[in-house]
């Protein structure tokens, strides 16, 4: 199925602006990509993609790399992290965030007990053990991924709690 015949892609183009699509493709990149590759995924011309990517670089949310003259783009991990932490602080109260920490720590303790390991890397290595069946291998890898993801989320929530006042501050009301 090509983009030209896919009703989903047609709808995406109809419902969103070129800037929306370029930003959305750029923010979800899995690898650094050139303006041409991003243009293909966003269904815009390369010239349009270049212009929008330049603005996103100027806004400090995308990073631009030039290797051998070919420019590639990738989301700025520092900006992405700040955005996540700020969203957590804005959408949740301190008590909620504290409860989330307890829930996620509980999940990690459950995995530690169930698999008798301390760290997700140990769980990844345990798939080589003789008594782990083929069916369990994929399950354990998935749990290891969820575990690492949970540790990442815990880090974000702790940062949101530590900087809560600053992240939720509003400009003073004008008289």
């Amino acid at each position, binding site marked *: *199925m*090509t*983009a030209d015949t*896919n*009703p*989903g*892609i*047609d*709808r*995406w183009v109809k*419902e*969103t602006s070129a800037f929306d699509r370029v930003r*959305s*493709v750029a*923010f*979800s*990149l*899995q*690898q*650094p990509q050139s303006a041409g590759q991003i243009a*293909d*995924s*966003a*269904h815009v011309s390369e010239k349009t993609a270049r212009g929008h990517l330049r603005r996103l670089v100027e806004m400090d949310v995308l*990073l631009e790399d030039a290797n051998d003259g070919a420019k590639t783009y*990738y*989301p700025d*991990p520092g900006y*992405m*992290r700040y955005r*996540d932490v700020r969203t957590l602080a804005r959408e949740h109260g301190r008590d*909620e*965030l504290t*409860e*989330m*920490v307890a*829930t*996620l720590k509980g*999940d990690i303790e459950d995995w530690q007990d169930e698999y008798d390991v301390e*760290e*997700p*890397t140990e769980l*990844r*290595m345990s798939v080589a053990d003789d008594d782990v069946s*083929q*069916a369990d291998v*994929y399950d354990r890898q*998935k749990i290891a*991924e*969820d*575990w*690492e*993801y*949970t*540790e*990442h*989320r*815990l*880090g974000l*929530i702790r940062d949101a709690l530590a900087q809560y006042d600053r992240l939720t501050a509003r400009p003073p009301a004008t008289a």
Partner: protein
Amino acid sequence: MNTMGYQLLADGPRGESPAEIRHRTLTELKQTVRHHPAVDVVVGVEAADGRFRELEVTFDPRILDIDANQASLRIEWCPRPDSSESAYFIFHYYDSTGRDFGWHREPNPHVDRLEHVQERESPDAEYEYETAHFESQSPVDLCWDILGRIEQRA
């Protein structure tokens, strides 16, 4: 940066861990599907308790033009520890009439290719599998491609 537990994992581009890429991608997918006219609600599953490991999309069955009271899509995105490999994913549709099918990229003992469609006629039936192909490596482009396939198939 939380480095706990990543000692043996190769860092991805710009030092991002697979967990960071997963979160960034889920966040963007959550934003983009809201633009689809048949999409009512998008939530991070168990977002309220901090887990947010996958997305649950609720469709308006009237706009999807289907004969069901409820229709949903579950989205998972799991980047590989080796960042040169394509991420695993699940885009799985199910509705209140028992329709149940999805596009997956993940190992499954019932099918040779990582990329496949699986469907079953009823909740107690076995899944049937077919191989599938996707044009794009971009999660959002892929998501809209699959939303189109869902509209055609549902």
